[in-house]
């Protein structure tokens, strides 16, 4: 990396906030998808939006690509750095700037963690709804980049439904304010596309999010079923009874066993467990919960347990949220896949996954958000056996194909990043990808902002084809464009 450029970077953020020492750079080689690694050319730790802007301006002037990073908990390599680029770590922008309880708004810097917001507003009976499993450490900036969901997004939606406005640095270093504390900013919904753009359109330096009031009642049930199919049937019956639960989670025997070994949530020893949570006004929750109980019984639940207090509820959720990490108890290594199928196709796709498990010889654990069809197969393998890691990766890829075949998506919440860009053409046609690239070119014509992510092939933006052509009526002076 050019010494003059590095000097300017050091001036922009202060010498202590520019990392070049190889030992220091190791931390930033990957996000939570650790098999994709690269050593960044340099890491900067700006402390303000103005410093982010200064860094991006320099990158733009010197034509150096840059990658933004939050807490590094991403699972698709979205924050994978570039050896020739600058990694902009936003962890020092970690202040909660404004809390407005009467209007249910909080304004934060991007490095604030998801759970910090809820912690801050909990005394007022409020919370921030998106709750990705990593919420203790993941940052709001990262949540915005990935449009994070969580177990409760079935009822409450994703990050895009909870972010009202952002301040962001464009790839040319300009600062924009899109949306804000009030709804419906005029013009195009740029906020709607910035959320979930995986850091490829701009770098968010401030965000205003909306809060929700804690529901009056929450009821959580843990039910053990003799089969995944029976549990799936219960989910269908709940939905067809007109109930939209706050969360519906399913785990299979392998992941139940793993969770038991790791955190002892006291799950039943059945082929499948279902966690169903309803929340809202007490009168409504009580009425609907009795339907859920009846439906589970009718669908052959072997055991049911209703959490009577917060402690019981936390124990059940701990078992679910620990499922990924717990796989380490039953397998030396595992590959986490993230795919989505229409909920009604779950049984069919799970049967295909079972067949694949038999054929591949690799155990596959299944934990998923059953309400919205978001699967997280965990493919177990042993790194010490030659070729097994590659085999696991191939198995994971095949599962994505099942999702596409069923009319689903290649990612429900982890993002495309560097990991899945090769699968984009399986889900989208050339014209679809081209339309998306137009948006990218409008924001980042030089291709400097997190390049090499989301899209299978980089595209040169080039010039917009042709100038505006004058309408004959304009030429005749009869009409004019506004």
């Amino acid at each position, binding site marked *: 990396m050019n010494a003059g450029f590095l000097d300017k970077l050091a001036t922009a953020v202060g010498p202590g906030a520019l990392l070049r020492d190889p030992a220091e750079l190791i931390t930033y080689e990957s996000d939570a998808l650790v098999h994709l690694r690269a050593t960044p050319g340099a890491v900067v730790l700006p402390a303000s939006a103005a410093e982010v802007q200064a860094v991006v301006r320099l990158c733009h002037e010197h034509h150096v690509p840059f990658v933004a990073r939050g807490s590094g908990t991403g699972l698709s390599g979205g924050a994978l750095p570039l050896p020739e680029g600058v990694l902009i770590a936003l962890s020092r922008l970690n202040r909660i700037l404004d809390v407005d309880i009467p209007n249910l708004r909080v304004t934060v810097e991007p490095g604030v963690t998801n759970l910090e917001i809820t912690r801050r507003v909990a005394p007022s009976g409020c919370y921030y709804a998106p709750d990705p499993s990593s919420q203790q450490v993941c940052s709001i900036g990262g949540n915005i980049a990935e449009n994070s969901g969580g177990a409760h997004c079935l009822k409450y939606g994703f990050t895009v439904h909870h972010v009202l406005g952002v301040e962001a640095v464009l790839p040319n270093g300009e600062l924009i304010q899109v949306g804000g504390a009030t709804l419906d900013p005029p013009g195009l919904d740029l906020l709607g596309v910035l959320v979930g753009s995986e850091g490829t359109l701009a770098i968010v330096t401030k965000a205003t999010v909306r809060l929700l009031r804690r529901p009056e009642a929450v009821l959580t049930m843990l039910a053990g079923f003799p089969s995944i199919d029976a549990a799936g049937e219960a989910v*269908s019956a709940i939905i067809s009874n*007109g109930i939209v639960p706050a969360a519906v989670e399913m785990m299979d025997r392998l992941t139940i066993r793993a969770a038991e070994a790791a955190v002892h949530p006291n799950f039943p020893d059945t082929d499948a467990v279902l966690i169903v949570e309803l929340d809202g006004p007490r009168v409504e929750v009580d009425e609907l919960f009795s339907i859920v109980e009846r439906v589970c019984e009718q669908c052959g639940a072997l055991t049911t347990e209703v959490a009577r207090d917060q402690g019981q509820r936390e124990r059940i959720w701990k078992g679910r949220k620990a499922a990924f990490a717990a796989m380490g108890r039953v397998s030396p290594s595992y590959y986490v896949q993230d795919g989505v199928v229409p909920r009604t196709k779950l049984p069919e796709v799970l049967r295909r996954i079972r067949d694949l498990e038999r054929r591949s010889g690799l155990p596959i654990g299944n934990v998923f958000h059953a309400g919205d069809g978001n699967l997280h197969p965990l493919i177990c393998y042993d790194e010490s056996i030659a070729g097994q890691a590659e085999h696991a990766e191939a198995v994971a890829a095949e599962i994505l194909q099942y999702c596409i075949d069923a009319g689903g998506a290649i*990612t429900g919440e982890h993002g495309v990043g560097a990991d899945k860009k090769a699968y984009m053409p399986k889900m989208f046609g050339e014209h679809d990808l081209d339309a998306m690239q137009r948006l990218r070119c409008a*924001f980042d014509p030089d291709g400097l902002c997190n390049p090499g992510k989301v899209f299978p092939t980089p595209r040169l933006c080039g010039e917009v084809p042709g100038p505006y052509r004058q*309408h004959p009526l304009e030429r005749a002076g009869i009409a004019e464009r506004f």
Partner: protein
Amino acid sequence: MDTSALEPLDANQTASMLEDAGRRSLSVVPTGSGTKLGWTSSAGEALCLSTKRLNAPVQHFAGDLVATIPSGTTLASANAILAQAGQWLPLDPSYAAGATIGGIVAANDSGPRRHKYGSPRDLIIGVELALCDGRVARAGGRVVKNVAGYDLSRLVCGSFGSLAVITSATFKLAPLPAASRTVVAACARGADAAQLALTIASQPVTPSAVEIQAPSASLLVRFETTEQAADQMAATTRALLEQGGASTKMLFGEDEREIWNQHESSIWDSPGLVAKLVVLPTDIASSLEVLNGFGSRMEWTAIGRAALGVLLVRVNGAAADEHEVIARLHRHAAARKGTLVVLRRTPGREVPSLGDDDPNVRRVMDAVKARFDPNGVLPALP
């Protein structure tokens, strides 16, 4: 090409027509039922591209609570089909009876139920677009949870046809509620009604709508859920409102339908300019005071989502008064992080430019427009 009106039968034909129009340097205005055509500045003489024949059957994936609806289908006819499986697309935009899906998405229009269900951009999960270069592109999909690729479906929500023609859209649906109750509260002043709306929003009840009406200083609070829950929440809410000094009644059935029809009608079926004022929910009260300041100089009505900070204001008076109201409200909003947009002009009158765009944001929007519609075939950006 027949230049009177274009009525494509499918997405490919729509895209071909756009490409052809570009080649001939013609302007095209995509049109559904035409209920909101006046909401953006018109491009002068332009061909009308009607979506009315983009009306293939609704694809309802009832078990997934999802439906793909062609853009020319009216919301009413789509909901009649979805209702057969006890579901609906819970949008209640203005002119709901005739509004088409494409138009509702293009205008990102919503109504009182936005309080609970959100606006089209909150419910859309996929889109099919006819592009100006003759291609058809899709984004999103038919699953609720999906972060693959850029969300072009949200990009076109509220784009007023400026980037592409929406040929179909896929939405997440909701179960039809079993019962509906509306609490009507009459307050002494608009500011009281606004304050009570905030009080209700802070309570553990889940209304589907919290609407304010001014100058009548009323609140309409609707509950749509099970019968038992609707009754109980309505009772709790009445007690709260009465404690706050309002007199209340509870409506259901025909009376309830009628009061909601009147509510919408007070804006859309009455003459004058209509503007959308968006402020923080706590600034609704002071916004109503601005209107009250005009006293009886002119006729005005305001209704809106009191707990969300969205008001529709109708002003019917002399041109100068109309301008003054708009200017005052705009200043009021702008000083409080809010916005004001004129939706419906009084026929024959121009509206002064409010011009509060951030030039950097506008440049990005212009760049998006230039990438999607380089020849300016489609209407200008909103």
